[in-house]
């Protein structure tokens, strides 16, 4: 993430902006970046398609088919209005695709055995089942799943970071302080980690900073302009409301 997030001065290109800059050309770096982004954020699409009423098999085919076509054409130029944010782009592109497929009804032929991404539909489906039975629109379900996926990914990357430095235990103990600073008694955490309360407080603060940095970097990777990060965070926040 550190290689793709904005550096301290915010000048570095984000991954999504890389894709956009490449446009229709088949720049291999841009293609790799797109593929990486899609691999990260396909699950919300599955939620969307399921919410539209397709069964599991159809949804799997549609998502795979969509990616196939996305990589074939890479036609971002046609999506001007939604270019700025990867999240919005992905949904609009999928809608276009679904509309086309609806006309042609050839979903099965397209996907046929040539999966461009290896997608864990088992996981997608089990998560889909956890979805509360609300009357949320498919769009809402997509936005929500997108926010969830992004947070889960980012937290996992921070956790990996801690684990690599042999601090997996500290992460496990301190992670609760992220959303509830001060609610967990530092004394208990200190006892659990065998350090002083002061050290726990500092460590909790550092975890918070790390999380903050990682989250902003991850969001920066899916918007085309680093100044958009706060707006995108607000949109993700809104997606989780209601």
């Amino acid at each position, binding site marked *: 993430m550190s290689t793709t997030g904005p550096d301290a001065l915010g*000048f570095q290109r984000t991954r999504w902006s890389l894709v956009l800059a490449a446009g229709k050309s088949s720049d291999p770096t841009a293609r790799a970046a797109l593929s990486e982004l899609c691999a990260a954020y396909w699950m919300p699409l599955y939620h969307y398609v399921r919410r539209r009423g397709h069964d599991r098999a159809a949804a799997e085919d549609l998502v795979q088919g969509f990616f196939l076509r996305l990589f074939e054409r890479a036609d971002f130029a046609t999506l001007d209005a939604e270019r700025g944010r990867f999240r919005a782009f992905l949904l609009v592109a999928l809608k276009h695709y679904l509309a086309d497929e609806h006309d042609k009804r050839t979903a099965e032929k397209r996907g046929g055995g040539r999966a461009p991404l290896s997608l864990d539909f088992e996981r997608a489906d089990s998560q889909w089942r956890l979805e509360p039975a609300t009357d949320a629109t498919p769009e809402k379900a997509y936005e929500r799943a997108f926010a969830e996926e992004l947070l889960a990914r980012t937290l996992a990357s921070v956790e990996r970071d801690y684990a690599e430095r042999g601090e997996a235990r500290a992460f496990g103990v301190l992670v609760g302080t992220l959303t*509830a600073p001060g609610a967990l008694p530092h004394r208990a955490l200190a006892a659990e980690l065998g350090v002083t309360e002061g050290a726990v*407080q500092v460590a909790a603060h*550092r975890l*918070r900073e790390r999380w903050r940095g990682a989250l902003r970097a991850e*969001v920066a990777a899916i918007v085309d302009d680093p100044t958009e990060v706060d707006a995108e965070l607000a949109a993700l926040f809104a997606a*989780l409301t209601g």
Partner: protein
Amino acid sequence: MTTPKTCPRCGTAYEPARSPHGLCLKCLIAVGMRDEGEVIVTQGAPRETAPPLDAIAPLFPELVLEEFVGQGGMGFVYRARHPELDRKVALKLLARANASDPSFVERFRREARTLARLSHPGIVTIFDSGERGGWCYLVMEYVEGANLRHLMRAAKIEPKQALSIVSQVCDALQYSHDQGIVHRDIKPENVLLDLSGRVKLADFGLARVLDRERGAFALTGSHQVMGTPHYMAPEQWEKPASVDHRADIYAVGVVFYELLTGEMPLGRFEAPSKRVQIDVRLDEIVLKSLEKQPERRYQHASDVRTDVDSVASGALPHPARAHPAGKTRAWRGPLVLASTALAWSAALVTFLAMATPHASVAELAVSLALFALITGPIAWHVAHVPAPRTAEERGAWRAAEFGFGRSFLFGLVFFVGLYITCGVLAHALGAVWYRLVPPEGGGGNFSGPFAVTQLLIGLPTLLGGWHALDLSSRSSTAWMHRRFTGFDAALTVFAASVVYLGIIAFTLRGDSFWTPWPAFVISGLALLVLVTLRIAWWPRRRAAAASA
């Protein structure tokens, strides 16, 4: 589908199974939003943006610049590595040397040389300084950790920790004052805590250099040099030239006040103990540090430290007792003790007198000894449950509180278990005793299976009751335990035990006496103790409620 959870912070209902580590997703996002983290304080004049790494790197070929860390009133800070020494350093760019005042650089150098002399574990060490590419800079020890402002924002700092921090700050200050160096800008931002929670003071004496250059700084607008007025001693405003080390002591007082109460001592502020429940002795320390006249303040940082340490080393008195409104009632302890002792001995005499024809003295003695053996540790345990000191802890206690009714029931369960177990053990020991010293005419009504059954019922009841009592001792063993710990609480447990004893005697064993009246006597005595307790504590509780 699992049960949804409600986030205690934002009140959103969410599905823990769908959240990583069961965290509230909205709160996770909120951490990343701009206004959650460090607000880069900009007020007054427009400020320069930090020069990018690659613009700075050529100026410092001996360092590997790693990251822009932050920006404060004092300058831009970068994290760097000294590859030769393989150590992390912080590079601080202070200000552009001003062309209109060529002597500034010279003054800065002189000041930096003085600062570099400071060598103390509580002070950020300076490795190098100078002027390059138009920037005055300092290369300093990199403190991996956070500053006090961050920590205060992240969580409430407990009084105990506040004492430790202030003590360490004073220690470092006394050292620098001994070297003739006044910090002049003590504030939470300049108090760093490393990963093990040790304090390190940063930005020593820089305020003096920078203050003089007020107009000359492109970096800091006039508002920013004055950026921390709340921590400035009155004489720092009025006669900046005459400022001495006592200005630092004033600033420590402000920081201390803020640590304890979470607020600044502005205008006619209240003593800290009026705002939060802390030791009243801390009021004196804080107020003495905050005296307007330097002559009336502490004269040495070490004096502050001594006083703080003396409060910290003695156990903090319980908040209720520390409250100035509630003086300890000296007569309460002895009164309760006396009435409890009276009730106990009267109950004992009655019990012995009435029950002896049925039981041997050995049985009774063993039974009572066992009772004491079990109640003693419990009373000791209850006496050592620490009192809640912070608002959070009090909240947790309140949440775990059983309430009077349930506490009473648990207590009853416990004493029933205790009674049965003691009885069975006494029987068993008595049987062994009879076997060894056979009494005339045979004796001992010990029956193995019966005892085992009793024990099977008694022991779990005892353990369950003990556990419950332990739980309720954290909330309220009896209803008054909420407010009292230590001796008071132990006393309460003993006193309450008579009440339980009375109830047990009345309900369980009333029929085993010749007549039921001993049970009445014990119950009556128990009631007497109850009333005494009520009288002893009632006015105080009312006073405490009124002052709350």
